[in-house]
């Protein structure tokens, strides 16, 4: 496993440095603008949850190195586990880095005390897990092109939803109800009282989502022809 983590590190180093530069600029802007802990958590989680798995998992497809990795004396299930662990390691570093920016930058408006709670951090990990759980198996099955098509489709769907919301107007149309439900869900996740039961439930949900992502990815990677 350590050999695979090292391989992922060496293969991804260049891309991660480029992404680090881009994210640094983006998060400097974000911490200067956002003063709500909740919005900061959601924004950061979505950005980190999308960008990092996309970069790490998509790299193999971009540089066509999957054939090499799968020809090495290592099981495919271990290869998936290596990708999974490497991506999570970078995600944790990414989240830590954004917190560091929020804490250290003199123009930061993010109230760090409001962000740094077990509940908020678990919500952040949960959101990242959900995104990663889609991106990892989807990239394994459909490759880099597939994930780009997915992301572009989601964007187009969002635009279409906004247009429909504007056309149909009113507070009770389906699009508004859907977005209202998503917003309500995020609010309740972030504002729910942090009882031990709630914290444990969040932790269990994170584990379950990641476990599912690994199992589906294993099954897909085992069938993949390179």
């Amino acid at each position, binding site marked *: 496993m350590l*050999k695979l983590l090292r391989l992922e590190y060496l293969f991804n180093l260049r891309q991660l440095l480029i992404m680090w530069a881009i994210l640094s600029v983006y998060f400097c802007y974000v911490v200067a603008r956002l003063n709500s802990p909740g919005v900061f958590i959601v924004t950061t989680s979505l950005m980190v949850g999308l960008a990092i798995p996309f970069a790490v998992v998509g790299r193999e497809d971009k540089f066509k190195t999957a054939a090499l990795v799968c020809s*090495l004396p290592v099981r495919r299930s271990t290869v998936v586990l290596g990708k999974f662990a490497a991506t999570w390691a970078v995600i944790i570093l990414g989240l830590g880095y954004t917190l560091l920016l929020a804490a250290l930058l003199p123009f930061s408006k993010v109230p760090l005390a409001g962000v740094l709670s077990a509940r908020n951090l678990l919500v952040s990990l949960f959101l990242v897990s959900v995104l990663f759980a889609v991106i990892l198996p989807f990239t394994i099955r459909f490759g880099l092109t597939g994930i780009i098509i997915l992301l572009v489709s989601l964007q187009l769907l969002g635009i279409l939803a906004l247009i429909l919301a504007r056309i149909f107007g009113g507070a009770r149309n389906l699009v508004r109800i859907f977005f209202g439900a998503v917003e309500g869900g995020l609010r309740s996740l972030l504002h729910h009282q942090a009882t031990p039961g709630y914290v444990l439930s969040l932790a269990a949900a994170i584990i379950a989502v990641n476990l599912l992502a690994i199992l589906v990815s294993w099954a897909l990677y085992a069938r993949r022809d390179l």
Partner: protein
Amino acid sequence: MEYALEVDSLRKEYPGFTLRDVSFALPRGYIMGLIGPNGAGKTTVIKLILNIVRRSGGTVRVFGLDALDREEEVKSRTGFVLDETPFYGYLKSPGVASVIAPFYTKWDRGRFEQLCREFELPWTKRVNALSRGMKMKLALAVALSHGAELILLDEPTSGLDPVFRRELLERLSGLIHDGRTSVVFSTHITSDLERVADYITCLKDGDLVFSATRDEILDHWALVKGGPELFVGEYGKLYKSVSRGPYGVTALTAEREEVQRRLAGRGAVIERIRFDDLIFFLGREGPPKKEAARE
């Protein structure tokens, strides 16, 4: 006999192409050439042995071990060169070695460096700045640096200059002298086969045409030349492929002795087969009956 590689009823289905129940075996300490026209399934067979393509059926055993069940052990004893070198383009030769070396317990850094020097591989150039021939040399250096007992090479000589191609073939011949290393390589260059291959496996359109020792092939396969009457009717069944030119008819047969017996005294010329003739005739193989009907 101890086998390095046993392929039994290997099957792979792609949309538009099926590798159908291919079986062959390579004893330890020998070199096998995989030949066949483009799209015959040579690369698919090599990828199936390496498990980078998943088989639809059949079994592959390497050193008697199932290549799926004992994947790690089998791969640690196998070296490979793929048709498209899959190294990460931004790494340099030492970087490639440092990524791959930890996966092999028998990795010999000194040997890798020596091979890089022998192959005149630039130490400071990134992989994506190397020519195809240089990338192939790098892949070879990697494949030969961890004491592999089975070496799988997919078109290793394509893109190489004639001098290095000759050196490579000599190196492959040298590898098997220890009696434990075996080599399987696919090629279009038939002179490579004549130079080094002990066994030859021929594929066409996903089917196994034959798998035998070079001497067996030279004994049984032949070119038959003669008048058109020798290639029609009951004789048509003797041929794999028939070519009708302005100066006569030439046919490929896998039944040299039978042809000699049946065409004795009828003016047929039976010639020793060369591998480029074999590839040519198999590549254009069609049902002799249809051609006979046209006559």
